[in-house]
């Protein structure tokens, strides 16, 4: 086998623990009796609520309209009655206005055979509108509205479109299973994006810990009638980050403060591509997603297909509950995900995993002063000096931190993962960015 591609600087090797669920086919989770659907599940402005308590909603009905340039539509994931419109606590600790729906009535699509839409005759513009209308956002966790990402500025040209099946976060296997089970659908989704973006080349990026997925995707890649190839990548976190991925595949660096399109590239997660397929071909809005429910404290780890708005606790119950008391329950991957404090938090469009971690897995330890070991610098894929940034932020010297590249930090967590002093470096970076922004607004 030829040498696997990867990014040259930084990165870490946390234990993958994907074996817990990588062999488990996706199964449908029970439909929740109460679904709590936040109107802010994406980056950008929240959707505007279109319904009132007491109204009936259908499965897949639009309940939140996208507002502003960067925003996304929100649809009801179940049929039922709107009980309340109120603030809902999200897994990330923020609140969002949301709609509480109690299940009632008929399912329109569930279990029914659907006609396939013939999308080939639609224009790129029309396809984009469908994607916007169905509320598609980046499913890898970033939740950036997809129709905005695919609106390419006039002067730019898409040279490379990358289908991101890297799934570099430990534990998660949702994308892996999707590639195995929905291979052709993903290829068709990629063809839709191909029509919209018209890139010169299509790459399908998969980390080398998913050899079976590499194989099936390689076999199916001929379905793309374009120069397309599957790129196996070295197992290293954060291999799946857009910037690191593009460095590995096309050897270009997204300039500081820039976007992938600045170097002629667009990257989308396989989950997003599958959602695009469902939206365009099956006419389905984004009302469910694959969630890997796993971790040492889960009795029977699974990959579940889950309706948006389902309480995280329901999923854990569906997987047999806890086998031992977890110290943390994480929404998303363990490197960038959020530790939740109550199990009622709903699954949103960006919830790629629910991970109940045991004490042994977390490996938390006492914080000590910085040892100047430089490990954080060695592992930072962005070439930053996390220990220096942390000290500057600690001294409220945000200007210096900005000069040292604070805004380039993507909170990947490599630095804090490695730090032997257990300094909460990412926490510092988040705080620093927030404070720097606030300071700038004040003028």
């Amino acid at each position: 086998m030829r040498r696997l591609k990867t990014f040259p600087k930084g990165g870490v090797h946390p234990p993958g623990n994907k074996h817990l669920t990588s062999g488990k086919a996706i199964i449908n989770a029970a439909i929740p009796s109460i679904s709590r659907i936040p109107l802010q599940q994406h980056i950008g402005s929240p959707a505007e609520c279109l319904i009132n308590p007491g109204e009936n909603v259908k499965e897949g009905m639009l309940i939140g309209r996208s507002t502003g340039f960067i925003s996304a539509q929100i649809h009801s994931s179940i049929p039922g009655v709107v009980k309340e419109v109120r603030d809902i606590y999200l897994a990330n600790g923020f609140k969002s206005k949301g709609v509480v729906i109690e299940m009632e009535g008929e399912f329109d699509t569930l279990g029914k055979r659907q006609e396939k839409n013939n999308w080939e005759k639609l224009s790129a513009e029309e396809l984009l509108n469908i994607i916007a209308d169905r509320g598609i956002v980046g499913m890898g966790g970033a939740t950036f509205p997809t129709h905005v990402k695919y609106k390419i500025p006039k002067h730019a040209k898409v040279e490379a479109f990358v289908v991101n099946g890297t799934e570099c976060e430990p534990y998660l296997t949702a994308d892996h299973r999707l590639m195995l089970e929905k291979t052709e659908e993903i290829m068709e989704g990629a063809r839709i994006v191909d029509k919209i973006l018209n890139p010169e080349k299509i790459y399908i990026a998969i980390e080398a810990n998913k050899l079976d997925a590499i194989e099936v995707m390689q076999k199916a890649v001929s379905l793309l009638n374009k120069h397309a190839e599957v790129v196996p990548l070295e197992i290293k976190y954060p291999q799946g980050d857009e910037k690191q991925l593009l460095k590995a595949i096309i050897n270009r660096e997204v300039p500081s403060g820039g976007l992938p399109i600045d170097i002629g590239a667009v990257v989308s997660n396989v989950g997003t591509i599958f959602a695009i397929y469902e939206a365009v071909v099956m006419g389905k809005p984004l009302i469910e997603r694959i969630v890997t429910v796993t971790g040492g404290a889960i009795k029977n780890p699974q990959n579940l297909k889950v309706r948006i708005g389902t309480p995280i606790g329901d999923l854990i119950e569906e997987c047999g509950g806890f086998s031992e008391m977890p110290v943390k329950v994480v929404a998303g991957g363990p490197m960038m995900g959020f530790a939740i404090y109550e199990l009622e938090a709903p699954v949103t469009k960006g919830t790629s995993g629910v991970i109940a971690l045991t004490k042994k897995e977390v490996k938390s330890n006492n914080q000590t002063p910085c040892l100047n070991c430089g490990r954080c610098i060695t592992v930072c894929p962005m070439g930053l000096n996390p220990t220096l940034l942390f000290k500057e932020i600690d001294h409220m010297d945000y200007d210096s931190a900005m000069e040292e590249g604070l805004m380039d930090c993507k909170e990947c967590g490599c630095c804090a993962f490695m730090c032997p002093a257990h300094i909460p470096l990412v926490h510092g970076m988040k705080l620093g960015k927030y404070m720097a922004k606030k300071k700038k607004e004040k003028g």
Partner: protein
Amino acid sequence: MNREVDLLVTTSPQIHHPDSTAKIMWTVVICLVPAGIWGVFLFGGKALLVIISSIVSALVTEFIIAKLLKRFTVLDGSAFLTGLLVGYNMPPGVPLYIPAIASIFAIAVVKWTFGGLGANWMNPALAGRVFVFFSWTGSMTNWRVPRFLTTHVDGVTMASPLGFIKAGLYDFTGTSPGPIAFLKAGGYPLSALDQSVTNWINTSVLNPLGASLKGGYVDLFLGIVPGCIGEVSALLLLLGTVYLFIKKIITWEIPVSYLFVFGLLIWIFGGLRFNNGLFTGDVMFNFFTGGLILGVFYMATDMVTSPLTTKGKLIFGAGAGFMTFLIRVYGSFPEGVSLAIIFMNIFVPLINKYTKPVRFGVSPRGGGK
């Protein structure tokens, strides 16, 4: 299922590498233990008392100061390691109050006046050693004859190899092939073990290859020489080093650049003092004497007092190698490892300032459009 669980809420990442400060410190301690056992075996029970004295003083000092600051840091292993290193850097026969004072100085002055662990800019153990070296130079250069040497009698002292050469070269006008020959010519003793091991290596390995090893190196490598308690056995120190590398607790940059620059300079200029030409220096002799291995792998690599980046570490190591060469060959101290490292410690903030990591997406090297 009970949904009222008591969950820990922290900012990402939610998992962590198994390393911690304490784990690193204690691992280094463990890697040092074999060399210490060897030192005690070689020089007798007095050596053990020296080590105990330095460790206990270090721990007590740390405990008291941390207590005054309402902190508890004794278990993080750092003070223990400092005490251990102080002990290892003592001659075996030194009066017990000297290691105690060195440790107290190391912890109280060098470490805590700057704010404790991580804040000191000089290696505490080395600073402690240098402090007592200049205060009690006589006791600090009083070397016991190790076991295995024919002249070994408990409590009797002799010169260290480097000291012997330094003194002998003072008014030396003839020529000598190198340090080992010089020692031999001066009647410096070798162990019987050295002769038999050297013979064995020659007949079974080197001679068939057309090479041969001169007597004397085996003593140096195994540590059958007078010297500080923990520094003499290059073999056992290197064994610990291998483990530190495997556990990624030390990285290659400082040892490699240190040994490379020092070795290169010794090779080029080291022969001059024996009135030989350039490129005749004895690199191996210089690697295994004067506590170089202990200094290079266990003290120059101290995280707190060495630079952060790869480039910075290379500069630091190279500078320490250069200074060690200068002091050892031209200075008035036979070794110079401690002073060289301390000297380079001073430059760490400066080195850090000028060796920033290369940022992603900023450098022209990135290949961006």
